[in-house]
Each structure stands twice: as C-alpha cells, then as structure tokens.
C-alpha cells in the first residue's frame, strides 16, 4: 500500500467524520433550540402542506432569491443545479452495479461541470466588482469560491485533459466504503481534486455552508401561519406561566 493511498484513505475518513459528525451536531443544536414566537414572513402558508411547498420552492427554484436579485439568482441557481448533476454523476463511483438513472445522467453531469464553474465565476465576479458585495465579503468567502472552482476545474481536467484510471479510482472509493483498501492512482490532478473535496467536506459544518440545513430550520420560512388557531408555546416560555 503506497503512502498516497494511506494518506488519502485517512483524510477521507477524517473528512467524512467531520462532515457527518459536525452536521449532526449542528442539526441537533438547531432542533433543540426552540422558536418561542410565531415569526413566519407573511404572507405565509396556513397549513403544513403549504409550508412543505414553500420550502420546496425555496430549495428547487430559490424563490426568494429570484424576487430579490436576478444576477445572483442566475449564477447561484446555475451553480447549485449543476453541482447536483455533477454529484449525481459521481454516484457511479459509489455503487456497483451502477444504478440505471445514474447511467442516464452521465452525459448531463459531464457538461454540467462547465456550467458549475461558470456559475461560480459569475458569483466571484460579483464579489470582486460589485461594491456592496465586496464590502460584505470576508477572506473565507473568497476562499470557499476558490475551493469550489478548484474542485470544478480539476475535475474537468481529469475528464477532458489528463485522464486517470477511473476503474482504479472506483475500486479505491469502494474499498474505503467497505474497509478493504485498494490502491489510489497517483495522478497529480486527481490528487488535487480529491484533496480539495476532502477539504470542502471538512469545513462544511464550520462555515457558511451551513446555509443548507439552515434553510429548513429558518422560522421565517418553516412556520405555519396559524397563531390564532393553535397556541404555540416554547418550553422555557411555558415556565413563565408557572
């Protein structure tokens, strides 16, 4: 077993642990924290089904963002939707035999990589050149974009320029999953790609990437508008009545 293989096996276990453990902890914190008052941004749905649709529209179409800024919406949606296709395409490395629908998305996922990088570039350009957004950007905002662009470009390079042995890559990944380590091809671009992905996984629960679970816990979006019909009382607020 080469050093490279061992090193990458270790960082992927560590990154997965941080991703899953960190996210689980954050989600636990969010769900444990009560929302003492009814604060949906109105007009809001008056039923739970309505809330599911509202959140669904936010997740799928970025409804609120669409209302507020078309440029951010275009770039943001392009990036996220492409990322989804790319991730679906990558499922082929994790499944044996590869699921039918994953086979179907392969060609789309392949070109979605370009769209993804284009979306990210657009977002980054706004961060660099729009005065207001530049003002609110922190170093980490730029770095996260760079990280994602790096992942996209290295992935595209592997696909279209410097091919790697994807059969071996798949064996490595399946090996990690079943604790039966297999050697990882030591192609530099692949190593860069995988390293950046591990880094992204690791920082997910300690960065603004928490917007993903955050949306589902946002009281202004996930609450039903029925305060007159149902009494909503947080445990600590109920204590005040004793």
């Amino acid at each position, binding site marked *: 077993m080469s050093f490279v293989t061992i090193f990458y096996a270790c960082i992927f276990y560590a990154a997965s642990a941080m991703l899953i453990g960190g996210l689980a902890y954050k989600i636990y914190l969010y769900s444990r924290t009560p929302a003492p008052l009814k604060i949906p941004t109105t007009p809001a749905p008056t039923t739970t089904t309505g809330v599911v649709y509202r959140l669904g529209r936010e997740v799928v179409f970025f409804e609120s963002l669409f209302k507020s800024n078309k440029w951010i919406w275009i770039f943001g949606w392009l990036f996220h939707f492409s990322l989804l296709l790319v991730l679906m395409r990558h499922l082929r490395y994790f499944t044996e035999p590869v699921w039918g629908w994953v086979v179907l998305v392969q060609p789309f996922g392949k070109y979605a990589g370009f769209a993804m990088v284009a979306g990210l570039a657009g977002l980054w350009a706004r961060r660099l050149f729009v005065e207001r957004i530049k003002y609110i950007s922190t170093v980490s905002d730029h770095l996260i974009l760079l990280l994602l662009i790096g992942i996209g470009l290295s992935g595209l390079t592997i696909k279209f320029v410097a091919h790697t042995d994807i059969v071996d890559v798949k064996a490595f990944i399946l090996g990690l999953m079943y604790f039966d380590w297999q050697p990882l091809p030591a192609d530099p671009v692949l190593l860069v790609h995988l390293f950046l992905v591990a880094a992204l996984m690791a920082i997910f629960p300690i960065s603004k990437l928490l917007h993903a679970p955050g949306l589902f816990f946002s009281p202004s979006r996930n609450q039903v508008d029925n305060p007159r019909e*149902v009494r909503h009382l947080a445990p600590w607020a109920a204590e005040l009545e004793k």
Partner: protein
Amino acid sequence: MAAAEFEVPKFREYPVIPALRPDEMAGSKPYVAAAPIQEALGFPGQLVDDWQAKAITRMGELLDKYRSFRVYMDACVHCGACTDKCHYFIGTADPKNMPVARQELVRKVYRRYFTFAGKYFPKLVGAVDLTRDVLDDWYSYFNQCSECRRCSVFCPYGIDTAEVTMAAREIMDSVGLGVKYTGEILGKLHKIGNNLGLPGPALEDTMLGLEEDIKDETGVDVRLPIDMKGAEVLLITPSADFFSEPHVDSLIGYAKVFHQAGISWTLSSHASEAGNFGLFIGNYEQMRKAAMRIRQAALDLGAKRIVVGECGHAWRVAYSFWNTLTGVGLGGEDPFAKALQQQLDPRHPVPQHICEFTYDLIQRGALNLDKEANDHRVITFHDSCNVARASRMGDMPGGQFVIPRSIIKSVANHFHDMPQDTICESTFCCGGGGGLLTDDLLEIRVKGALPRMEALKQVVDDHGVNFFASICAICKAQFNKVLPFYGFDTSMNGGVHQLVSTAIQLGTKE
C-alpha cells in the same frame, strides 16, 4: 417646514442603488436611558463594569432560547441579495445599514466567541472581539433598524435582520445600555396602562369630548364607552388614537362603525394601549407583561370579542403573539386562559383586526356607506410593515393586503396603488418604526423615508393622489413629521377608518 440640520435626500430620477458612503450615519444614536428608566424594567441602571463578559453570556443564552437567532447567525452566505433592500441603506448609503452588514455587527462577535473558525482563525472569517468600538457601532446601527422585515422577504434563507436587531438590543439592555425613548414608554405602559401615560379620568374626559364632537358634526349620539362591563367587544387601540391627529379621526371611525352595526363595545382604562414596545427591545418578558394587561381587562370586563385598532406592530403582537404570550386564542391551558376561552365567542377570531371587523360588516351589508362623500379624495394605501410581513387578516394568506384595500374601495371612488415593488410584501417602511419614532433620531427617520416618499410622489404625479391612508399609529405619526421634508402636505396623512368615518351614513341604518 422645520429647517433640517442635515441634507434631506433628493428624489432619485431612477431607483439606482447608491454608492457606499462608509460611516455616514455612525453618529446617529438615540439618547441613552437613565438609570431610573432602566431599573424600572429590571435592567442595570448603567453600563456594568464587566459588560463584555456579561454581554457574551447573554448572547449565549439568547442563542439557546431563540432558534431564529441561532440559525441566522450561521446561515448567511454573504450573497448580497439583501444589500439594497433596506430603506435606511437606500436613504443614507451607509454600508452598515445594509441588512447583512447590520447582522454582521453581531455575527462577527458570535463567530469569535461561539464558533471554531472564529476562535482559531478570526481574520479569515472576519471575527472580532467585543470591544467598546463594536458596542458603539451596535448602539448606532441597531437603532437604525425599524425591524420591518423587508430584508427577510428577499433573503434566500429568510434571515430576518429584525430578529438580530432585537437580540442585540436585548443584549445591550442586559448590560445597562438602553434607549431612553423605548424604555420610558414601556415604563409608562407598565405603570399606567398606555404609552402616553394617560390616567383613566383623562381618558374619560377625552372620550366625552369626542362624543360631543361627533354630535356637533352629525347630530347623532355616538358613544365612546370606557370600562363598560358586559360590552360585547373590547377595543384595544394605540393610545395615539385618543389624542393625535390624524389618529383620532380613525378612532371616531371605529366608534361610528360599532354604532351603526349596533354592537356594544368598550375601551379599557387598564389596557388602554395596543402598542407593545416589548417587541422592539426584543424582550419576551416585557412583551408578555404588557400583553397580560389586555387579558386581564378582557376578563374583568367580560368581553366576548377583542378587536384591535389601527396599529402595525401592535397587530403583529396581537395576531402573532398574544395567544402565545397570554393564551387569548385557542389552545391555552392554564385556568386563566380557560376562563377566557369560556367567555370569548368562538365564532370570531381572537384577536380580530378592526379592518377584519369592518370588512365583515361591509360584506354583510350592515353598513350604509356613501362613497361619494370621499370624492374629494384621491387615495393610496401604505402597507405597514408589521401588518404586511408579520401578520395576517382574514382567512387566506395575503388577506392583510386585500382587506384594507377592499374597505377603501367600498368607501371611496378614487384609489390608486403605489408601484408594485413598494407595496404589499415589498412595502417600504415609513422610516419611524421599531422604536425609532423619537426626535433624537430625526435624521435617520427622514432619510429612511426616502423610498416610501418616492413611491408616493409617483402616484401624486400620475394620479393626483391627495390622501395617504395607513393603518398604523407609528406610520401616521412618522408621516406627520417627514411629509413636509419631501414637499408634501401633512393634510394628506390619514387612516383607513377616517375614510370609513367620512362615508358612513349615521342615522340611516341603526
């Protein structure tokens, strides 16, 4: 017109987003509350010695108590979609008035003390210690947010800067740095029962005076009862309705509606205030204490229904929070709430907005309205933020937009809406909400009114609008102050029930 000591913003030819002017409003701060005001509310009298540690502790407690605060601290991606949505930013160009930048004043401290990245890599994620400079920034800029929630409509995660502002104000109060204006008013509310500090006898005099005025004007005996046991409706209205112009004209309107519908009603001297500044300072206990007066009054007077007068934040507290705070709606389980449930008439929502009340009567044909009586008026309607984005009327989402407009159209012939992107859920704040309605904040109030005034200008120019209707005591008071700065006459400022009052034909139905 008052001579301004600052530059009143010019109407923009096109709604361009202003270029940033850093620290433009850094000097805008309300007067700090003196010790007696703070202590009456149970807060320290002045900034405590170890304020820094105490503030961080309080922040931690709020993170545990409020899911909104916790999630909003983490979820922002700095996308910038909200940056041009705040009227205070549009009017001042101060970057710290961009909603995300305002949140960031707290978030950078949150990161420093509560997150891994901020503890170990503060520079990378923009985390800072809570220093005196940061606290000063908080005091300036969290008193330049009217908690209007416009930003939350446009944020992809619904991040509501109002929640962050409330948390920041609560933290500042807890270390002894409170605002004179809001503190004083809450004190009066707790002590006397209303924001103006009017005792019961003064209220009775005022109501008698109003009864005479109505009699002189219409020849009809319309009553404005106070503390009348056994009345069907308890009306809770902002105390400004008793004294201020044009507020009082709406109060007269409510009285005429009750009169014609033949529904007995009363005001309460114990709970003579719909406003609840506990909301503005983000303090649950204060808000609850204020709301409890209303529940007490309803029980004491034996009312069957509770109706709330024209006031934005009051309606938010009443509609969204009263049931939670005091159990006046359905589902309350303590003996107090249960007694109230038995007494209240389940066929009507509790509480009910005066517009819902009047609208129902109009639908049933219970009011005799002469639209032509309002023909000298060309009307537009200002959606107050707390009604538009934090509550509802009627039984369908968005009823808060439909019902007041429908009332106006039933009582008047000439109505024109302001541009779509400045009304309904996108409405622009009057500039004086959220506890900013004080003369020491006049500059930010005038500047923050810019987008609302621009939209008004458009319908004034296009349709000759001469009546600016709203359903909020704070909006009305704010417009009285700021309309002249933008070249409008304050006579155009008024309430929806003022229009009803003009149109209603007393003596023809009852």
